């Protein structure tokens, strides 16, 4: 038996996730003894130092290597390519913003514990690994680590009944979906001659087999639960409404982004078996229609954003369909761009909701009345986020949708593009309702002033500006997405 050696590339590639894991451990240690000893600033600062460290580690990867993939590291468990780095970047920046908003939000509800930051750090580390993972085992362990942390975050305010109920629902559904995921992985592993890494599975040539299609379908079901695609979405609204707003923001952005990055890598390598494209088309159409229709009549903003998140999962499946159709693998490039745009806009939206729900647990549409008069910056940021989610021009969300629908038409899936555009038009209605409430209605009482800590203001401002900037000058990010998708297959 040869001794175990690690190459320089292997050590560097694991540094971003490692920095986040170590931050989580230090967070826990910092809370030893009297939990009141470390003030909330220290906890927040620690988490931000850790996330910044992870960003530095990520940047050092770019200094170290070019955009080309380094090939498989750790015996095929992970890789360091531009696609993974892009996903890692989205997640680390999201965790930074969530940490910025966390301090004031948590202490106002008497829950400012280091565990919150530690769990965000641990789940961020697992998500970074998920974006980089290239075999079934590392993918599964990363998904389980991040899911377990997010279940706890969803029920973090255990004195609230709705939070506990939502977290329990999420946990049971998540465990159920993990069963599907694991069964599918076991079938694929067995059929492809005991190979774990995606490239070995692709090389084994089992992907035309009928049982392989069943295995890939089960893996897809596992992911569909995580991102909330329609027949598997029933947990999403309840969890979004019950869970702490900040945790919902983290879930909505990071869990969805990392799951889509991993699913994309899995499908690009293995091809997904015989019936994958038809199944994806059906799921995408159902998700776009039901998600948008269910969002129309929601009075709770969190539930509305939950259904809107479901609808966006439907849009995000279109690039996968386009890529699997085999016309031209490069036109799946809209997926990373759309995820970046979605991350920025959703963070801005949940930033405002975090401020809104800070004092009480308000998230009704009527609570937004007259926000433009009391908090013009927050109202402006929320407006930008909503018009970007609706896909109105001059925002990143518009460019993302434009890329997705033009790719769909280019690859011959005109029906998908038509349904996508029609449902986007429907979505404008429910995205405009909060905007009308903020700008054209009077507040119910003069005491309704929403507290706005600078962390929230900064997040909403930065994400709003990024949404506009990438909406007007998208070329750089579009090019980056295109190159990153090229690096998936090495």
């Amino acid at each position: 038996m040869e001794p175990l050696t690690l190459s320089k590339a292997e050590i560097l590639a694991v540094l971003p996730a490692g920095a986040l894991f170590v931050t989580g451990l230090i967070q826990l240690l910092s809370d030893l003894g009297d939990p009141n000893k470390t003030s909330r600033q220290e906890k927040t600062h620690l988490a931000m130092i850790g996330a910044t460290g992870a960003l530095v580690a990520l940047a050092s990867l770019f200094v170290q290597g070019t955009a080309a993939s380094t090939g498989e590291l750790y015996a095929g468990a992970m890789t360091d390519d531009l696609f993974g780095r892009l996903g890692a970047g989205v997640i680390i920046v999201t965790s930074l913003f969530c940490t910025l908003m966390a301090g004031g939000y948590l202490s106002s509800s008497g829950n400012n514990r280091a565990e919150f930051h530690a769990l965000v750090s641990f789940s961020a580390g697992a998500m970074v690994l998920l974006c980089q993972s290239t075999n079934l085992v590392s993918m599964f362990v990363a998904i389980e680590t991040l899911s377990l942390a997010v279940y706890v975050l969803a029920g973090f305010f255990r004195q609230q009944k709705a939070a506990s109920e939502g977290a329990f629902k999420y946990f049971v559904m998540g465990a159920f979906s993990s069963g599907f995921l694991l069964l599918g992985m076991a079938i694929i592993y067995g059929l492809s001659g005991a190979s774990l890494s995606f490239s070995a599975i692709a090389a084994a040539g089992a992907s035309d087999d009928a049982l392989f299609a069943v295995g890939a379908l089960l893996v897809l079901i596992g992911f569909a639960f995580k991102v909330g695609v329609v027949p598997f979405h029933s947990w999403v609204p309840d969890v979004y409404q019950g869970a702490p707003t900040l945790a919902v923001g983290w879930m909505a952005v990071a869990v969805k982004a990392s799951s889509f990055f991993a699913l994309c890598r899995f499908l690009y390598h293995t091809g997904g078996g015989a019936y994958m494209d038809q199944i994806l088309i059906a799921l995408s159409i159902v998700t776009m229609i039901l998600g948008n229709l269910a969002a129309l009549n929601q009075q709770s903003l969190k539930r509305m954003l939950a259904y809107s998140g479901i609808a966006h999962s439907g849009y995000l499946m279109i690039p996968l369909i386009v890529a699997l159709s085999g016309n031209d693998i490069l036109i799946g490039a809209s997926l990373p761009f759309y995820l970046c745009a979605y991350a920025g806009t959703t963070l801005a939206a949940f930033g405002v909701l975090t401020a809104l729900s800070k004092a009480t647990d308000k998230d009704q549409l009527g609570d937004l009345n007259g926000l433009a008069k009391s908090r013009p910056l927050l109202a402006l940021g929320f407006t930008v986020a909503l018009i970007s989610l609706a896909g109105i021009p001059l925002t990143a969300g518009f460019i993302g949708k434009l890329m997705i629908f033009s790719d769909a038409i280019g690859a011959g899936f005109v029906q998908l593009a038509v349904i996508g555009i029609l449902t986007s038009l429907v979505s404008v209605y429910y995205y405009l309702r909060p905007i009308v409430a903020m700008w054209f209605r009077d507040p119910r009482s003069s005491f309704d002033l929403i507290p706005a800590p600078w962390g929230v203001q900064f997040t909403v401002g930065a994400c709003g500006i990024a949404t506009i900037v990438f909406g007007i000058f998208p070329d750089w990010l579009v090019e980056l997405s295109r190159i990153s998708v090229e690096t998936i297959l090495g």
Partner: protein
Amino acid sequence: MSGWLEHLVFGILATVSVLSSFLVVTRKNPIYSALFLVVMFAMVAGIFMLLDATFLGFMQLLVYAGAIMVLYLFVIMLINPRDETLPDEGGTSEKAFAAGVSLLVFALLTFGISNSDLVTEMTTPGGIPALAEVPATHGAIEAFGYELFSKHLLVFEVASILILVGIIGAVHIAMKQRPASADENDSNEERLVTDV
């Protein structure tokens, strides 16, 4: 083990495991369900051993049938459910839905296996050349450990984070609420510091 005996043992193990897992979901009293789950785990351990995965088989017995099931039984006995206090398990429509989903998965797997060329190839004698000779170390602790700490080093380390997250979650959810006085201190402290 000779061929027919192996088939016979597998047949018994498989039948008992399917029957007991069916009983797990149909029993009303959770204690019976848990005990049938023990039987199912033991049968699966037997199947692992039949496949020369001795170490895995023993781990299945020790960890699942031993440790985890004891934990299950502790929890069930702490809640101490009686027949009259057991919650209603949902109406016929819910049961029909659950049965429908199970049948759908079963049909899917049956369809996949019966239509798979690779499975047909594997079931014909000599169909898989690579597995024709099993190395002597197959399934032994040494081979298992070497595999775990060389090929799967990264995953092994991440699994430790996974377990840690599980512990944190359990502690956080089960922890006593902080006394009211501590909360007061907390809010006093907050008034002094500026918003972050």
